[in-house]
């Protein structure tokens, strides 16, 4: 297969994400038209599950919400962010991620040195085709280890 097409735009921009979830709780800076955002962690998220190894790629079931489920992990917080003052970017310096109730990671929101295109296999296309779903310019970045906390 010498050539695979990469479509510059998503075939179904609004369908999957925005329509069913009108509210994007993230700070405006991190919001993208498709709702996708990037979070970088040092380490991984281990989610207990019966089928551990199916973690990675499963193209087939993405369109079927009934078969997906979400496991709560913790909470994200941008303590200095205020909706009333969206132009001030000082809040980016601090972000928290609680894992469970008693562990917290401290991180920040960073502008990516180069924007990142999120690519996905185009669904319902006969040939193998990729599409650019979103171009992301910021990431939430946690580079430190979790610390114990008690006061949540």
């Amino acid at each position: 297969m010498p050539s695979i097409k990469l479509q510059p735009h998503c075939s179904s921009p609004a369908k999957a994400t925005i329509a069913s979830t009108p509210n994007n709780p993230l700070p405006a800076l991190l919001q993208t038209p498709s709702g996708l955002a990037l979070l970088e962690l040092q380490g991984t998220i281990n989610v207990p599950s019966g089928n551990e190894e199916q973690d990675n790629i499963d193209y087939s079931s993405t369109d079927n919400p009934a078969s997906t489920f979400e496991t709560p992990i913790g909470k994200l917080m941008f303590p200095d962010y205020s909706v009333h003052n969206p132009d001030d970017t000082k809040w980016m310096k601090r972000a928290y991620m609680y894992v469970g109730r008693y562990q917290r990671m401290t991180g920040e929101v960073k502008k990516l040195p180069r924007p990142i295109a999120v690519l996905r296999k185009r669904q319902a296309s006969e040939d193998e085709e990729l599409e650019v779903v979103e171009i992301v310019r910021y990431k939430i970045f946690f580079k430190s280890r979790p610390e114990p906390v008690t006061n949540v």
Partner: protein
Amino acid sequence: MSTQGSRSILFTHTRPQEGFRLLELTPELEELLTSKDAPLLELKSPSTALAQAVIDPTTHDYVNLCTPIQTYRIRQVQSSNSLHILRPSRGEISQADIKVVEEEPGESGALNLPDEAVTALAKCSSTLELHVPPGGFSAIPFLEKSLRLYDRRSDDDGDIAMGSSADSTAPLGSKEMRMARENVCQDIPVSMAQCEQGWRELCAFVDGAEGVACWRPSARSRLAVWKRLVEGAVLQGINLEKQFLVGDLWKSVLDDDEEMEPPFPRALLEAVVRRICIADERPPLADDIKCESRMDGGRWLQVSGLLTISCCSLGASFDKVECTQWVGETYLAATAPTTSSAIGRSEFLRAWKESLPETWRGEAALTTLPNGCYNSPDPTTICFVEPSQRQPTKKDASAPITAAKAKNTRNWHELLKGHR
């Protein structure tokens, strides 16, 4: 506590995860993708046969990302950090599991489910990075392998002339030619503009005489076309430095005797004309768009035959210097292709001058030849050096030094140095 009053967002993990890839964009690519009429991009790798014929010393398997005019090599860069792709939650959270996060949902610092949740729906442990190797990308090595070599001289007495091409006065339409060309370019892992640039450089052409086939003329055939072209132009009083009609030039090339087969396909003449009426041998990348429009001009030229040559060279006719250079190089490639067949310098210069229109002969000098295109086995002789064998000095001088460094970005030291 310091976090009081700020909203907390429930963070969940979606299962099954989705498949995404992350591609780091260059500024040009970002601009391209965010523009209103973003073009279709392609991920190209050479066909198996071509990959074996044209070996890239730096890597075995590779994929290139091609915009209409630009090519990038894709490299997968692993990271020890994991990048998660988040999306606002759709609320398929098992309420029983909330306990993990919050003892009693709805209490202080309450989580307002499901609006206030994001979910990680994919994890990527690698990103795709793009880079352009120091020498850039060229279609020529691939074209040389995929096009048939056309090596028939006009004075070969016609017994192996191109089939019955003379009978059909209507040659292939420009559309068929373009399709044939694009078919070849499909398997070549560089952008279409770069394919066309290489195509032009090789004077490649499409001929329909024996079924549609794509050819690249040998140096010998190119030289024969040139000689014939100059002869004809002199006979018909066509000044090659001024604007002229390709149709007239073609007529001047044909023998007076209508019955005779043409010495070579008209497409070959046009390919040669297109090659030498272009000012820069290799325009810098920024000029690629211009160069593409020139190509369009060239195509148009094939269709109507009425357009003057100036259409495909931005207002110039044959450029004396460029053309002289091309003739010299072609002559050398045709007569002294290897060290063992080297010819005398003075002999070469004389022959070179003789193949030029009279007024151009002053241009012919060894210094006019493109850098590195010739070699001197001893002080009196000269021979041709294949482009692939040439010292990589000429273009690299203009290439930014950072490009050379980018070669080893897997090496962290290099990578960091580049960022300073």
